[in-house]
């Protein structure tokens, strides 16, 4: 029987993985994947808590909205990355270093 702690452990692992990806990877697309991991870990949490802990349907609503808004954010983010790539011919995060102190 899969219970609440298993889900929480999985989502926490996803969260840590997302943070690790963002910190370690230098590829902008990979960093955006890390953001998706974090958002999905939160969505999973909401769904799991609704199912096992408090039967409040609002949690499912939150999950749905997170999925929708993550898609919108990814769309805008990717459009900006494409623009950046067309100008700079690179998607390495260290090349985005023109604006600095």
């Amino acid at each position, binding site marked *: 029987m899969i219970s609440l702690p298993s889900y929480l452990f999985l*989502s926490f692992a996803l*969260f840590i993985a*997302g943070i690790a990806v*963002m910190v370690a990877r230098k590829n*902008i697309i990979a*960093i*955006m994947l*890390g*953001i998706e991991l*974090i*958002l999905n*870990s*939160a*969505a999973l*949490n*909401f769904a799991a*808590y609704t199912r096992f*802990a*408090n039967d*409040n349907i*609002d*949690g499912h*609503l*939150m999950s749905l*909205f*997170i999925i929708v*808004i993550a898609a*919108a*954010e990814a769309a*805008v*983010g990717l459009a*900006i*990355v494409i*623009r*950046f790539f067309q*100008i*700079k011919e690179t998607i390495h995060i260290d090349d*985005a270093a*023109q*604006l*600095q*102190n």
Partner: protein
Amino acid sequence: MGANYLASLSHYVPELLACLTMFGLILIEATYKEEQKTRGFFFLSAYIGLASVLVFSAFAITKEPLSIFTNSIIIDPFSSIMKMIMVLGTLGAVLITSQSKDIDGNLKPEFVIMATGVLVGGMLLSSANNMLVLFIGIETLSILSYVLASLRKEDERSSEAGLKYSLYGGISSGIMLFGLSHIFGVLGTINFTEMASALKTIQQTDLIVLMPSFLLFFVGLGYKIACVPFHMWSPDVYEGSPLPVTTFFSIVPKVAGLAAMIRISHTFFSDPGALNVGWVGVLSIVAALTMTVGNVSAIGQRSVKRMLAYSSISHAGVMLLGVLVINEIGTRSVVFYSVAYLFMTLVAFYVVSAVADKYGNDHFERFNGLMYRYPAMAVALAVVMFSLAGIPPLSGFVAKFHIFTAVLNKNYYVLAIIAGLNSVVSLYYYLKIVRLMVLKPAESTEPISGFSLMNQGAIVALCIPVLLLGVFWEKLITLADGAKVFIQ
């Protein structure tokens, strides 16, 4: 209980009008041909639409506070005043856009449309009473801001600014959601008022989960108002974005984030207890750091725009002082500070925009001898700089004075001393520009086209509130006094 949906809509006129304005502007923009550059009718309808939003928000101030849409949105005098400040900020940014050369003519309508969208997000955020509305508000605000930052598509710096903004924004909203999900798990509801009553009967063991979760929640909001340590994106984004966009960013998202922060502090943390101590402690450290880091980093800058970006970080820190006292005096002082800050920022950016359009950059040297070429403009900029530094008898001083009153009222002496010292530090870089304008000879005598008679009139008109609020501030403080946060 909240009113039903149809009845709710009648209390939701400002937001609906803002949405209508946005859609109307999209349609109007579609009727223009590519080569028509002026677009007078477009801007006229934008002004009319935003002004109507302003008027309807003003009507809501005098009404009884109530919660609508099954208690997910609260319309109270506080949120209405914050909405008015945001609308005024948007109006100012649109005015600067219509005159600026930093954004290409064809892109100006896009800026106005998306700025109205960001405004809708800010309005949602300032009256949010449940996690979902808060999240949607933050994302509406953010996603459109990413596009605004990278508005100048051909420009390397602008797209880099958009990239950085979207990466930092995505990360912080993800972290915030992770915190929110655990708060939901422990308290079992997404409604703020129900959460607050659940917090009263909490077990000690639940606090182990709740404390870090609220910290993660704070990350998301702190990112929106750009407080240290989540401020790294802000100077880069402010510098890379076109100037009208920077003006817009330094007002609307900040005010919206502060409004949400005030509502959350009042709802969850007004009762003494472990959570209250933790929240106030975190806010105190963050506020002190924000003021100091913002000011110290502003000193060495070459670009006036970047200097103003850092100074806006430090002003956010000062406003956080008004948030962390969690009482009515604090709320009142934040409202007053936001109004004063709004006008000071608009004037400063308006003048910088005209100078930057002429010379192609906004380094400090471009302001040399401005006093002898455009005395009215130099005096306006000097007044604003003095006001930003907090010198009496200007509005910036009165605003800071009220914040200090709120902090001292709670006996947070250390914070007051840090804020006072920061005021002194900020004098250095604010007065640097005044010194250059007065003491250095002018670099050239070519006229600056941005300082046409109409623009000079607009700048002087925007300057008047800065002067008047420094002397006749009782009216506004009485108004702000009525801006109580309503907790159902």
